[in-house]
């Protein structure tokens, strides 16, 4: 089966100019290679500073990798120029962690979802609104609230709104960068169910970035563990949980309550 997304040896280097002209190099990504099949979910797990978000931005074409290739749906996007990239971008969409900061507080919910359609310039106003309302219904936002501003919604609803906006351009790949981390536990379950439904309905592929191993284990077909800009382990979910190979993986599993319940009892001193 043709993989939807393939990365080969991705590297991303940042340069910080130190005092007195000395330059400091930071390698955010080193030799990252993996692939995601269509309609599947890959979870990217790691601690802060491991390079997860940098990887997300590179794949979403918001940053250019220093070297390496990214092949999406058969097209090598690292070789595209700015104009060609612009046509490519709608197919890969991002959902961020903090909906309060990624949604324009002055727009209504309807306007937020209409905005990507407006930028594309293909639809009339009525068509845009119709599509937007359909999307809002799909993510479970009641029609009566379509004209409200983001601050009038709850955290879970705001995240649904962010997902609706991401779906407006009918992407093939959705990158969820810690999209559930800021939500309450019961709301996380609601959004997780929504993501699963949308995946089977629309045939979406997910790159699920998180430091919550439990949710990753629940949602993902495969898990990739990142440390210091590299992918140190990549296997099917069950295999990673049953027989983790790397120390970092074991540590992350141990640190997630519920994944190793036995450990929990011992700690209760």
């Amino acid at each position, binding site marked *: 089966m043709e993989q939807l997304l393939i990365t080969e040896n991705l590297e991303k280097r940042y340069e*910080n100019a130190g*005092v007195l002209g000395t330059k400091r190099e930071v390698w955010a990504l080193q030799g990252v290679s993996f692939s995601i099949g269509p309609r599947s979910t890959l979870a990217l797990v790691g601690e802060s500073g491991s390079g997860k978000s940098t990887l997300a931005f590179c794949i979403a074409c918001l940053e250019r990798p220093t070297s390496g290739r990214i092949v999406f749906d058969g097209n090598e996007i690292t070789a595209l120029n700015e104009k060609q990239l612009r046509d490519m971008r709608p197919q890969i969409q991002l959902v961020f962690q903090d909906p309060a900061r990624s949604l324009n507080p002055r727009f209504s919910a309807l306007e937020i979802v209409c905005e990507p359609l407006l930028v594309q310039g293909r639809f009339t106003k009525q068509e845009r609104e119709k599509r937007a309302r359909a999307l809002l219904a799909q993510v479970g936002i009641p029609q009566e609230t379509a004209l409200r501003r983001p601050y009038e919604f709850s955290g879970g609803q705001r995240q649904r709104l962010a997902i609706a906006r991401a779906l407006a351009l009918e992407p093939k790949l959705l990158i969820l960068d810690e999209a559930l981390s800021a939500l309450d536990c019961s709301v996380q379950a609601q959004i997780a169910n929504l993501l699963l439904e949308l995946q089977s309905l629309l045939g979406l592929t997910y790159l699920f970035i998180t430091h919550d191993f439990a949710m990753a284990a629940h949602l993902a077909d495969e898990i990739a563990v990142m440390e210091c800009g590299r992918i140190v382990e990549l296997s099917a979910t069950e295999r990673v949980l049953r027989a983790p190979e790397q120390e970092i993986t074991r540590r992350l599993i141990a640190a997630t309550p519920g994944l190793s319940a036995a450990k929990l009892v011992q700690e209760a001193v």
Partner: protein
Amino acid sequence: MRYFLRRLMEAAFLLIGVSILTFLFSTLAPGNYFDEMRLNPQISSETVAALRAQYQLDRPLPVRYVRWVSSLLHGEMGFSFAYNSPVAPLLWVRARNTLLLTLTATFIAWALALPLGVWSAATLHRLPDRSLSWATAALLAIPDLVLALGLLILAVRSGWFPTGGMVSLGSERLTPLQQTRDIALHMELPVVALVLSLLPTLVRHVRGAVADVLHTPFLRAAASHGIPRHTLLYRYALRAAANPLISLFGFSVGALLSGSLLVEVVMSWPGLGPLLLEAILARDLYTVIGGVLCSTIFLIGGNFLADVLLYWADPRIRTAASAQ
């Protein structure tokens, strides 16, 4: 360090640009010093032409600019026709007087504005804040000119204050201590006028900046530690509200010259203001350019000072600057 070198370079470019523009506008403005003379039938046109040639007013523009810049580098700023003396010494004396007045007024205004603004913010929407808001609104509404004239009238009627000038007649014969006292006495009214015109804006900005900060999590966290109220207000709140206030301070220093012009003229304080005014009216070219340049230096100096203070006061700026 790089941060400041860059700022200095930007400042130098700004100065050059302003000098060119000022030169351009002043010379392109119709008329020159000798036009008045031409109207006088007793002075022949040859004399006028000769005078013009003597002061090189008939040379092409770029040449005059270059000569002016080169003389600037020697520390001279051209020649004043009206005062019949080099411009530079004139300017320094007047600038010194202006600085004396405005720096004193700025210092006093801020020293009053900070506690008043903090008090206002701490009692937001309650009686002390509301009465202060009324007072500042009233002060803002009164034009500076009316304020200055009003004070002058007070001085004349009551006889408590000198009615103008910087020194009394015959002050050269006094001891240095008495001279200082004399100047201070003459400064009282202009300083009061300046402070009253500056105060409302400052108080409002301090109030706004501190009120914004009073609801932040870190202030509530500090309160939860039992830190006493006055420490909370002055050490925690004011420091967090410092950034916009420091920028404001830089602006106010930069606007020193224009702010004090009115007061200096009304109260006959021998500062840059009256000099500039007379020079413009008399078409005294080089004095005008010199005065404008002075005020630009104040402006740039003020902004630079604000940058330095911000850098010193806010560690986040230091971190960002060193990362550039």
